[in-house]
């Protein structure tokens, strides 16, 4: 493992003014780059810095999921905070795309992300840099509706070609959880032990 | 010698012969299928195989399967060439029946003692590929078509080493009649010692191996089962067949395996003969002896089948043309030289 401080400075130096912000996800460096430098950053990461391995490309929707028909006392769906907060490297808006690249020789990895406009979600494609980006970008396109400019064929990957909507956006409802009433809602007893926070799970 | 020589009208004789042939093929398929496919393979794979049907080690399994196949719906694909599709399994099975015509099971237990018995048997056995081609073409299925074409290509490559392997035996025996070959082995002697006759496996060992390898290809068994290659072509030319038509293919496959095992036993192991046993005793013991030798050969063939992976079609062609045929030719030449010299 390369020393993380040197690694950070090497990467930020090489990327130059493309870097908007940086943060750390529990030991992993997260670099946020300008949207117009998304492809060139990949170029630098692979050709200059030797990050030869593409782990994944994925999208994220920072908008809190709209609460639909949540009943009092429903603990089945984790209640996320209702205000929009962004991750470790910040974001300009709701959508971001992030990717993790690694170096098989230096045994180091870095997560890069960039903002995607909500009104016109367009990102530069990485296919010309990492050929493996093909499927990841297709997945991201159908799950979030991000258009990867320069991708050879943005077709559906997982979903049938007539599928409408972008399932991983937070406003896309999970039907399975909406057609069936939560069975945990009848006649509630107070939980044993009273205080929920302090107990220990132990070896059941 | 003539104790059994009751005068039988030729019509009745023909009927008996037809019944025997018709019975031998499914019976052979059944015995080999059960012994090797169900039991030997299972045990080689640390399994037991079917145990329940029939009570004793599942002996009824294959018969039950046959009955099941007869009850199944006869599915013909929409796009299929219906008449060819229906005819194909029959062609395959008929070629199997025809081989048994010349295989002797005793000095007089033979349907027809042709002078060109060997030639006839090998010629007739290759008819089955026509059925395979018909099946593959008529199924209107790409997997079936590829399988059938592979089978045809394979046949062309393997007919030659098969024939050449037998040529050595024919030269040594000096006859193409299977009866003649058997008696040449029965009455032969190894350097004057005639204790076990002179089974040609000793002098023609290379020929025996070549024959087995080529027969394996002829029977589309692993390592040459590309035409059916279940992991690539699902089931090759049989992929669209169901019910009794599939049953025909199955009988054809194992019937032909029986036939080739019998042929190999006859050509190389002395067939029905035991040295010194002649006449009526040989007629009575012959079938049993033949079956024992046949099973031994079949064991070898199926042993290989259950152990080896499969070659690729181009590798098979290379093996046939670059290795087997040269070896077979050399074998023929050496045999001929020795024959002339002695």
């Amino acid at each position: 493992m390369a020393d993380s401080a040197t690694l950070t400075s090497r990467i930020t130096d090489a990327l130059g003014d493309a870097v908007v912000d940086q943060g750390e996800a529990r030991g992993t460096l997260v670099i946020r780059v300008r949207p117009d430098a998304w492809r060139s950053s990949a170029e630098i990461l692979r050709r200059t810095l030797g990050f030869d391995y593409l782990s994944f490309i994925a999208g994220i929707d920072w908008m809190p999921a709209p609460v639909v028909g949540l009943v009092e006392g429903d603990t089945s769906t984790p209640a996320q905070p209702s205000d929009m907060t962004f991750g470790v490297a910040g974001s300009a808006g709701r959508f971001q795309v992030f990717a993790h690249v690694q170096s098989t020789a230096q045994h180091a990895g870095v997560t890069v992300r960039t903002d995607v406009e909500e009104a016109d979600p367009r990102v530069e494609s990485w296919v010309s840099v990492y050929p493996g980006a093909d499927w990841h970008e297709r997945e991201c396109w159908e799950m979030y509706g991000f258009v990867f400019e320069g991708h050879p064929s943005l077709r559906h990957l997982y979903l049938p070609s007539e599928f409408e909507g972008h399932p991983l956006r937070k406003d896309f409802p999970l039907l399975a959880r909406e057609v069936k009433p939560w069975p945990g809602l009848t006649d509630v007893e107070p939980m044993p032990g009273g205080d929920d926070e302090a107990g220990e799970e132990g070896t059941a | 010698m003539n104790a059994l020589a009751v005068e039988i009208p030729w019509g009745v004789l023909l009927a008996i012969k037809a019944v025997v042939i018709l019975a031998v093929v499914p019976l052979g398929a059944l015995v080999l299928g059960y012994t090797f496919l169900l039991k030997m393979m299972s045990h080689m794979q640390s399994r037991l195989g079917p145990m329940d049907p029939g009570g004793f080690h599942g002996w009824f399994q294959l018969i039950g399967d046959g009955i099941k196949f007869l009850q199944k719906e006869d599915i013909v694909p929409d796009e299929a060439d219906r008449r060819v599709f229906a005819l194909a399994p029959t062609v395959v099975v008929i070629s199997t029946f025809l081989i048994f015509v010349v295989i002797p099971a005793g000095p007089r237990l033979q349907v027809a003692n042709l002078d060109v018995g060997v030639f006839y048997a090998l010629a007739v056995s290759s008819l089955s590929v026509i059925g395979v081609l018909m099946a593959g073409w008529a199924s209107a299925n790409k997997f079936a078509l590829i399988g059938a074409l592979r089978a045809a290509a394979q046949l062309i490559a393997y007919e030659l080493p098969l024939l050449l392997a037998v040529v050595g035996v024919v030269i040594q025996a000096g006859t193409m009649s299977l009866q003649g070959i058997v008696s040449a082995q029965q009455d032969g002697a190894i350097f004057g010692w005639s204790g076990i006759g002179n089974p040609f496996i000793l002098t023609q060992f290379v020929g025996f191996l070549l024959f087995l390898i080529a027969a394996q290809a002829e029977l589309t068994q692993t390592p040459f089962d590309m035409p059916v290659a279940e992991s690539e072509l699902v089931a090759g030319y049989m992929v669209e067949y169901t019910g009794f038509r599939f049953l025909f293919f199955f009988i054809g496959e194992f019937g032909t395996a029986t036939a080739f095992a019998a042929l190999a036993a006859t050509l190389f192991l002395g067939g029905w003969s035991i040295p010194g046993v002649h006449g009526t005793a040989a007629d009575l013991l012959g079938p049993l002896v033949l079956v024992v030798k046949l099973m031994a050969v079949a064991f070898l063939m199926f042993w290989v089948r259950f152990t080896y992976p499969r070659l690729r079609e181009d590798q098979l062609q290379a093996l046939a043309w670059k290795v087997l045929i040269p070896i077979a030719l050399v074998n023929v030449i050496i045999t001929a030289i020795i024959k002339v010299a002695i």
Partner: protein
Amino acid sequence: MSTTEQPTTPGFEVDPAAFRHLADAQVNVELDTGDMILNMGPQHPATHGTLRLVVRLDGERVIAADPVIGYMHRGYEKLTEFRTYPQVTTLINRIDWLSSFANEVPFVHAAEQLMEIEAPPRAQYIRTALTELSRIATFLLFLGEMGLQVGALTPAFYGFRDREHVLNLIEAATGGRFHPNFNRIGGLKDDLPWGWISETRNVMKIVLDACDVFEDLVVGNEIFQARTRSIGIIPGELGASYGVSGSNLRASGVDWDLRRDGAPYLAYPDLDFQVFTHPDGDSFSRYWVRLQETRESARMVLQLLDGMPAGPIMAKVPRIIKVPEGEAWVETENPLGQMGYYVVSKGATGPFRVKIRSASFSNVSILPWMLRGVYVPDVVTILASLYFILGDIDR
């Protein structure tokens, strides 16, 4: 039998061999036939699952191949957003169902990192042992399955037979043969049952014997070698840029194993093990590398059993698990390759976003490149040698 020898194909060069069949076709240009589209799958014996391959054929030669996936897409990344952390582990068991225990580890590890707790050493050791056991179980199946795809029926049964012993161990410890759900945030559900360690020692002997059998029955078989050598070559650099990982990448000569080279996790830093690579990058070397790794895993399990510390198996964890806000990326060396979870938490009882990086997805994405110019039978051996689990592709 020496395990350090690494056979090479003499006179081997990447490019001409990879396009050898194309060159052949050039000679036969006057025999050209029309193309045929062959649809392999979603139900096809070679795709062990519901992968569909649409291949364009010229005779038996593949001109182009397009894998179609998604027949088993279950939307786990969406489902995780509707479940609490303990519930998510049940889901991720079912991503790569042949080595489910190994799937749980990175996710639980990510949650632990965010909560800043660490499982006690005994729990780490047991986790490592079970991870390696699931690697053995997966690879034993592969070692047999690959034989089946090349046409030999028997090795598959040996694979299933010997894997059963390992599955019995996993079931005895976790209660589940395939879906253990044994990891808890902060430790394990339960300690090992009485007699498990000695039983495991016996089973490891069986596993090592099984490896010898596969060495003789499959690797040593000339037909198998003829079918797999210089077939389906992945050049190391190209493989990495496609995200091909694990044994597949190591078989291409890239010496990269997250157990050794990644951020330290589980008990791997305490273990002494060898990472195997092979210079050829063909189907045969993928088989060979997995065979060696199976042996190595068995040795690692024995080491773990010897060094198993005593003590608790659960850290102090609140009864209701709320993970503090933050992000964590945890990657592990799973049997199929690099498996990682990028977990984004917003302080709730469930994750806000989980990106599941599964190995097979990237491993299979190289197929269109690999299958160009090979014969139909080679498609099958290449698919088998890449060794993917459909649940791991489709998630």
